[in-house]
């Protein structure tokens, strides 16, 4: 095993050396770090846009931003959060953890790994630069429905299209790498059904990505040709159909929302057993549930389009298929509760975030079930009820999931324990913030407030003020998270190799901080895991 220090640089100039190290790195841990920092930066940018949105909505009337710019804000907030904050964060976690969790020395295709990361900064620079262009940034929502985005889109739409192409290429290549790594580089003895759940969920996510990102690339390509090369895919005037756009988009879009959530499932399935000091309940059913969710995600896209004038039979099909998703999702939630049941639970920050994730994700799942009921969906559709729903699913699932993972593995990455008191404080403020921001949105939606409006009538004023106050709180608290992370990187209590007494898995058998190169010779799985078991069987230790 090599030392922790980065490989000796051949550059004399320290700046060149630094740049070369990060630009040319093929190490999965360094690339993972790059992904995580990129996602962190974009998370703050997209968050700042959300703060502007909530400030404007603090009161009825137009105070801060003009309607045209407001639409740009909500579009960029959605796009950057989905493609810039959440997806790179999960890929970063995959890069750091998957090789360590399956006992592999690195990703299978290290140079491809470097390439798929370094596309992203360019893609997002391109995307964000559109904010400063004449005519403004894309202003048609992250769903970019035609013809608002084609015939009526601002000139910057073309930059948006190319940015989507670039991040699509990055995602597909990254996913290929993850699948090839998981299929080929597992330590001897680690069968598929012995893989940690985080690896399983990522394997499934990667397949989803490979199958739907090209469809997204296809649909933006059609937009491009509609805009500039005289085709009429989505233009009624030329014999096309705007609704076709929605079908293709949501064929990508629905699996995409599971892409944003499945790794979060995996993270919760790692953390809850650790802090319950009990094995994950129903490992097999967890795997099968994840697979069924992934498969079902391909046949429910129509539930985003109930008001586009579908025939009755199609509506019924999509309603039933969507309701069916509640079954495997329910199984997962029940399994997590059963994992905690009769355990010996402690509430360190990762566990708090994981529990917060389960509770709020379940609430989001409930409103999802309600949205599946077509007659009621006619009332919910495109109102703040939907905004509340998907933020309840995505904030806990993707953001809380990632934060739980960062608190959980940060001691392994840096060799330092984070400040537990600050971590818990961060959790509680974030929890209050999320609920204060998004819970009132259910009510404003039910009361009839459409989404994506820059201004609203007086009856919605109270709920919006609450949401805005919650959003400010939630936004501010993430600065604390940044502080905690930086503080932990720079120092802090020394973390043991095991870190968490109840934790199982190969990543806990390597030193903390994890050296740049781990498992250059495959670990002896039997030996390692039995050792961990023995440690566990001795009962609660005191090495916390």
């Amino acid at each position, binding site marked *: 095993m090599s030392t922790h220090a980065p490989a000796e640089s051949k550059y004399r100039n320290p700046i060149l050396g630094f740049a070369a190290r990060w630009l040319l790195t093929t190490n999965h841990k360094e690339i993972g770090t790059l992904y995580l920092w990129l996602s962190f930066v974009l998370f703050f940018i997209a968050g700042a846009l959300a703060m502007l949105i909530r400030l404007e909505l603090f009161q009825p009337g137009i105070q801060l931003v003009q309607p*045209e710019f407001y639409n740009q804000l909500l579009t960029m907030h959605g796009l950057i959060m989905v493609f810039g904050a959440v997806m790179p964060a999960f890929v970063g976690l995959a890069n750091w953890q998957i090789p360590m969790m399956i006992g592999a020395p690195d990703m299978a295709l290290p140079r491809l790994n470097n390439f798929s990361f370094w596309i992203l900064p360019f893609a997002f620079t391109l995307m964000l630069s559109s904010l400063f262009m*004449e*005519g403004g940034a894309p202003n048609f929502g992250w769903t970019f429905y035609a013809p608002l985005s084609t015939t009526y889109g601002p000139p910057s739409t073309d930059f948006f299209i190319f940015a989507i192409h670039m991040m699509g290429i990055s995602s597909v290549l990254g996913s290929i790498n993850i699948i090839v790594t998981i299929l080929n580089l597992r330590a001897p003895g680690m069968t598929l059904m012995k893989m940690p759940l985080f690896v399983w969920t990522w394997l499934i996510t990667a397949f989803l990505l490979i199958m739907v990102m090209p469809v997204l690339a296809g649909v933006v390509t059609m937009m491009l040709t509609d805009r500039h090369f005289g085709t009429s895919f989505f233009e009624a005037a030329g014999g096309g*159909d705007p609704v076709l756009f929605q079908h293709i988009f949501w064929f990508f879009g629905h699996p995409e929302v599971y892409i944003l959530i499945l790794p979060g499932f995996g993270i919760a399935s790692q953390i809850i057993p650790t802090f319950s000091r009990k094995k994950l309940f129903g490992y*097999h059913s967890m795997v099968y549930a994840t697979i069924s969710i992934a498969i079902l995600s391909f046949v429910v896209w129509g539930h985003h389009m109930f008001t586009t004038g579908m025939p009755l039979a199609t509506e019924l099909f999509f309603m039933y298929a969507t309701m069916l998703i509640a079954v495997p999702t329910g199984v997962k939630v029940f399994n997590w509760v059963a994992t905690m049941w009769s355990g*010996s639970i402690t509430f360190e920050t990762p566990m708090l975030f994981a*529990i917060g994730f389960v509770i709020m994700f379940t609430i989001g799942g409930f409103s999802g079930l309600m949205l599946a009921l077509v007659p009621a969906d006619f009332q919910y*559709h*495109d109102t703040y009820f939907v905004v509340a729903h998907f933020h309840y699913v995505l904030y806990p699932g993707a953001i809380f999931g990632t934060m739980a993972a960062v608190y959980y593995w940060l001691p392994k990455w840096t060799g330092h324990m984070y400040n537990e008191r600050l971590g818990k404080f961060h959790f509680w403020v974030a929890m209050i913030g999320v609920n204060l921001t998004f819970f009132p949105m259910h009510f404003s939606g039910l009361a009839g407030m459409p989404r994506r409006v820059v201004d609203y009538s007086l009856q919605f004023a109270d709920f919006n003020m609450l949401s805005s106050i919650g959003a400010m709180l939630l936004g501010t608290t993430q600065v604390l998270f940044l502080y905690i992370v930086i503080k932990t990187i720079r120092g802090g209590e020394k973390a043991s190799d095991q870190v968490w007494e109840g934790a199982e898995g190969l990543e806990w058998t390597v030193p903390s901080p994890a050296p740049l190169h781990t498992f250059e010779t495959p670990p002896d799985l039997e030996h390692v895991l039995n050792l961990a078991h023995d440690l566990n069987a001795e009962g609660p230790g005191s090495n916390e």
Partner: protein
Amino acid sequence: MTSLADRLRTGLQVVLLCVFSSDSFAIEYDMRAGVTDLSQRVQGIHHMGFYVCVVVGIIVFGAMFYTMFAHRRSRHPQPAQFHESLTVEMIWTVIPILILIVMAIPATLALMEIEDNSNSDMTVLITASQWKWHYQYVEADIGYYSNIATPQDQIYNLEPKGVNYLLEVDRPLVLPTNKKIRFLTTSKDVIHSWWVPDFAVKQDAIPGFINEAWTRVDEPGVFRGQCTELCGKDHAFMPVVVEVIPEEEFDAWIADQRLAMALASETAVADRNKEWAMSELLPIGQNTFISHCATCHQTDGMGQGVKYPALAGSDITTGNIEDHLNRVMNGKEKTEMQAWAPQLTDLEIAAVITYERNSWGNDTGDVVQPMTVYSAR
């Protein structure tokens, strides 16, 4: 008439608010029951979904909080060892499926009724454009535009906001009670969505295609909704107002509209036969500009960026009159600049063009007569 009904309703709500605090909760926090059979059934389905979720939530969260309390390490130092049970997995797979089937039945039945558009008594064609609605009574062959009536000054906080802030229009859609009304929706530009929560009707308006929905309202009243599909800059400013009047008054209303149209065309004839002075046209033009054009081109004629060009010193407003007339009357393809010929009178178009050619430093001195507009129609 209806404003009285409106006031009574509001008064009733206020009384209810004061007497039953629980009712005030329902009014503010719940999906509204609406005023049609179907909207009430839809609310029932919403309640069913909600209560199922509440019960399941109490069970799941109850178990979670119990275990967090009872099985925390200080009380329960030795964890149990179990980690799978096929029986339990079967139970919590099958029970949710049964619950879902029970939920699907009323939803399916209601949906079948919602989608049954047959045997309608009248048809209204709703055409959306950025950012207004046009209502066409297909059988009666009359139609008109419905624009937001909230003044810009209220939106920009320069004057106090009214009770129906953002939910008021110049001409509401008028419908009779007790008739099955079939709505056809379509759009001239981007996708919009016509929503009246009290009818539980939300239907996308898609350019080039028509969709249908229906309603039957038993009680007269005024019902308000909004556009619910992001349709560009002024998506938030595209309200829907429907005034339902007793069915026996509806024929009279239609006759009134016919009369008004006849009067309007008489006025139009008189207007276009008159020679107008610039001083007469400018104030009319300014009003027309402020209510229809200023949201994009701005009151100072400076526009907003490349999408909404400035009219001060532009090629169109200072160039050839015929091009200017053509742009205003027919709009510009693939932009928000729509065709105003069907929306404005000859006098209004003549006045607004005269105003644009003689304001903000444009000093062409041109006066466009309504007759010129009429002959271009």
